[in-house]
């Protein structure tokens, strides 16, 4: 059996005296789609932040692509986020004055990587997600379109893990379905794994595993 992409053991995370993650365990295998659910404020985004190497202030063991996150430098963590993962944020966090293409290109430009090859990939993923590759600033796009731009940005680096924090929040059912149809088809091709915080039952049914976060611990129930 191959090593898991993410292996988290006994993860603890507290805010002041509030224990949000209490010895949480989690593993993610290659190509797997894991959905995380739970009530509001239970710590789903916090868990995603820890697993996504965004929040180093935790205790426990976290291995990301074979790298011990607890001992990694900020540069190593940045490299993991850049090359190993892709993120879709709840509010998309796009630069509203930039076009879809420039938003997708932005991480590569800021990381100082060669943008020539990224340009081709960006154009391809934009087209694949049914977006117009023109100069329209994203502030003029619909919410569904902006969601797809955020997805394109997360996927342009060919990540092995896609992390999505309520990516379809405030989208209508049809747009939600369309987005996951697209993500599923790309996932089948590229083979990346997904960890997504979700609520929609329809989308949850697509997941390989559904984990519910309750009192700081993940409880698994099979889809």
């Amino acid at each position, binding site marked *: 059996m191959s090593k898991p992409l993410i292996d988290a053991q006994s993860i603890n995370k507290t805010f002041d005296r509030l224990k949000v993650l209490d010895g949480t365990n989690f593993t993610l295998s290659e190509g797997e789609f894991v959905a995380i659910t739970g009530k509001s404020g239970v710590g789903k985004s*916090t868990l995603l*932040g820890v697993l*996504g190497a*965004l*929040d180093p*202030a935790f205790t426990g063991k976290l291995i990301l692509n074979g790298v011990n996150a607890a001992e990694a430098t*900020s*540069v190593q963590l*940045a*490299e*993991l*986020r*850049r*090359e190993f993962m892709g*993120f879709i*944020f709840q*509010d998309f*966090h796009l*630069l*509203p*004055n*930039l076009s879809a293409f*420039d938003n997708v*290109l*932005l*991480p*590569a*430009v*800021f*990381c*100082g*990587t*060669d*943008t020539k090859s990224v340009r081709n990939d960006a154009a391809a993923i934009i087209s694949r997600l049914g977006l117009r590759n023109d100069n329209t*600033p994203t502030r003029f796009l619909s919410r569904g379109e902006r969601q797809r731009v955020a997805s394109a*940005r997360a996927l342009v*680096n060919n990540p092995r893990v896609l992390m999505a924090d309520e990516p379809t929040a405030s989208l209508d059912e049809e747009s939600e379905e369309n987005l996951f149809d697209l993500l599923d088809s790309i996932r089948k091709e590229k083979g990346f794994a997904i960890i997504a915080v979700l609520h929609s039952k329809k989308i949850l049914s697509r997941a390989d595993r559904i984990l519910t976060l309750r009192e700081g611990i993940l409880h698994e129930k099979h889809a």
Partner: protein
Amino acid sequence: MKNTRKAISLWNRGHWKDYVFSQGMLLIASLLLVFFISIGLGVGNILQRFLSSDLPEEQVRVTPLGVQAGFFQTERGGMEITADIMDSLAALPQVDRIDPQVYAHVPAYLRGLLGGRNYYTDITLEGVSHAFVPDSVLEHIDWNYTLSDSATKPLPIILSENLLILYNAGFAESNGLMGLTPEGVIGLEVQVNVGSSSIASLQAPPINLRAEIVGTSRNTALFALAVPIEFVEEINAIYLPDDRHTYSALMVTAHKAEDVPEIVRYAEEMGLSAETRRGIAQKAEILVGVVTAALGALAAAILFSSVASAIHTLVADLKNRSYALGVLVALGTKRERLVYIFAFQIFFMSLISTVSGGLLGCGLSYLVSTTLLNLLPVLKMAVSSLAVYPVGWLSTGLGLVLSVSTVSAWFFFRKILATPVTELLRR
């Protein structure tokens, strides 16, 4: 580093207008600073030109108080330098030697050819000793001259350089006469008439003499022509034998430069004016220093606040867009890279603003200089330009502004970007 300009361009798209005010201030502040420095130094040059002196360090020029205009305002009335006063000064232990100067109380005029045209002017003669004459002149000229020499050699004259400036600016141009340079007048032969002028004449018949300008000096009285002292004593005795003998100035030489202040103090206590090389230089320095420093300080204050404003604008922009910063960090951008990019941005913007401001300041000072020199020919004769461009100093200033802005920006950006990424994303 790779893609830095592209990153700055993408990050600021739609935000450039936020920087217009702060960068505009920076541009104007640089403009003012360069303008004030340039014109301030130019004004300094003019004052230096008018007030400068070749007095040796150990010499004091003692004169009666008030403005002296030679024959037209003789030393009569007020404090006069008499033989007693000279003896009193000579008795000071600090004094090594005194070389007196004497005005001719006799009206006189000068006539000659300038550029093929007749030239006439009333003059005042001031008798000076060897000590007053520059060594370079004494190498070629015999400074001893009495009326008995008039048949065999011309009367040597030393001309005030400042008088030349005034002649060029105030007289030559308006009368269509050729301008004169110190080098150009040396060797010029003229006729000097002693005993009468256009406004006065004495009973004794006037004397006509051949004269030659042998040198120029910054130390002569403005309206007087310096000639050998024996000659002046002689004509004063011939034309006005009953006049009280007084001196127009005393060149007092101290044993050493450190003795000069004591001599100055003594002369001033006697009610006389005492000029020293340091005193003359100080006048110019103080005048220019005060004006330039005040204007420079004002411009520097504006520049400082502009730099602060420019940094503040960018920092405020980053704070307002922390979520976007969080996204960039979350997507794998190293914090150091972001700090580098934003510090480079402030460096780049400040560079453009300060260099543009500096160049505009140079242009403005050039324009003001040209206009003033055209309006005031007297300045034109003293200096070729009112604007001075000390490239080294200006470059150092520019470097300093850029260093301060970039380093401060670096410090502030590091502080902002030290915030945990999860917190940046929540803002």
